[in-house]
């Protein structure tokens, strides 16, 4: 059993690394994308919207392959697979987050902006002190959904040969002629997601001090 579990544990660490790195990049990246999507400058908003449609409308696994192999085939540039995986995942999730942010921002009543304006707040202050705190509370459920999906999507980076949990489970399975490693991988993912959803419950509770 330890021969199965130990390598899978260290492979989980790789999955967790992919998870956190993707979050670190995609959560901020969603904001400029949302801003571009909501821009009053029509060419920009059309361009960003098209980009969001393509990224959200094509399989992530294809994007992973494209991000690594297109530069190699087109420009003969080859680079680290792990970096490629993070880029593809971050851009993909940033697009989903951008739409969540946009929905949240548009659901904030105009009156909040007007109150901020008559009280003399600058645009930056209005965004950081008035809009953002209210936005966070509104988007927590949707973000929870996406983050849970991300835990599972880390398995897709196996297509680039990265030794994360799923791939390790697969290879161990075929090596030992047993499906047990796959089942154990399922348990690992479940435990990770259980931690994530508990985290979101805690966040929602903390934000429940007002309606």
């Amino acid at each position, binding site marked *: 059993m330890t021969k199965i579990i130990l390598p899978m544990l260290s492979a989980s660490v790789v999955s967790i690394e992919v998870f956190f790195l993707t979050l670190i990049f995609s959560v901020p990246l969603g904001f400029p994308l949302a801003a571009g999507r909501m821009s009053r400058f029509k060419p920009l908003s059309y361009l960003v919207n098209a980009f969001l449609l393509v990224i959200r409308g094509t399989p992530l696994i294809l994007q992973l392959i494209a991000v690594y192999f297109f530069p190699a085939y087109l420009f003969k540039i080859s680079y680290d697979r792990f970096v490629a995986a993070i880029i593809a995942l971050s851009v993909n999730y940033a697009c989903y987050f951008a739409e969540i942010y946009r929905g949240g921002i548009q659901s904030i*009543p105009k*009156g*909040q902006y*007007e*109150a901020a*304006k*008559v*009280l*003399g*707040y*600058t645009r930056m*202050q209005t965004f950081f*002190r*008035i809009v953002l*705190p*209210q936005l966070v*509370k509104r988007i927590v459920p949707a973000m929870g959904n996406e983050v849970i999906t991300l835990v599972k999507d880390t398995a897709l980076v196996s297509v680039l040969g990265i030794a994360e949990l799923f791939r390790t489970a697969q290879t161990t399975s075929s090596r030992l002629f047993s499906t047990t490693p796959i089942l154990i991988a399922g348990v690992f993912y479940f435990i990770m997601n259980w931690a994530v959803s508990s985290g979101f419950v805690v966040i929602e509770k903390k934000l429940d*001090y*007002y*309606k």
Partner: protein
Amino acid sequence: MSIISVQHIKKSFSDGVQVLKDISFDVEQGEILGIIGPSGSGKSTMLRCIAQLENVDDGSIYVCGSPIVENGKYAAKDELRKIGLNLGFVFQNFNLFPHMSVLQNITDAQIHVLKTPKAEALEIARKLLADVGLSDKENAYPCELSGGQQQRVSIARSLALKPKVLLFDEPTSALDPELTGEILAVIKKLALEKMTMIVVTHEMAFARDISDKIIFMADGVIVEQGEPKSVISNPQTDRLKDFLKRFNQ
């Protein structure tokens, strides 16, 4: 010099409707101006133009002598913000910040816009809360308050920045008749302290009691203006007579 001077402002909405046809009036320091009129007359829009929440297409608005807009040309952004700090605005639906407590709602702008030190801001906030009768609610959140309480907090929030003029956009229209009294009492108190105010309202009796001057607007123009006892008790035009008939049932 009038503290607020509105000269020949005109405004049309993007669908072509002319909401302000040619409005001119002055408000002197310490004066209370009541603005009455049917829905769609442009009275809220006009108030919002003074508060810079809407833009006029033409005309001039002067606040404390400085122009917000002169013949349709707006001043620079920093100028506008500076001039704007002379005005306080109370909204029909309060617009309190839901994620901040009552006390934070009142201190936040003081600290971050006026750069008042926190201790001083808290002192000012507490005094204003006492003035509006809500000292016991300082740590409550807006969602825990009644409409009347929220509106009183909203008034305190505007007063915290020590504006020279307070603008009220139908302050009691979103409230039950029972809660309306609380707000009118607060405004009466401010009147006694000689605060310059412009109040757009449907509360006819209140407008008559408290105003030094009343403007009756309809269809984007000022139809009549003058002292309450002449405008309300002795209307000259048919338009105003029709409007007042409804209140004298």
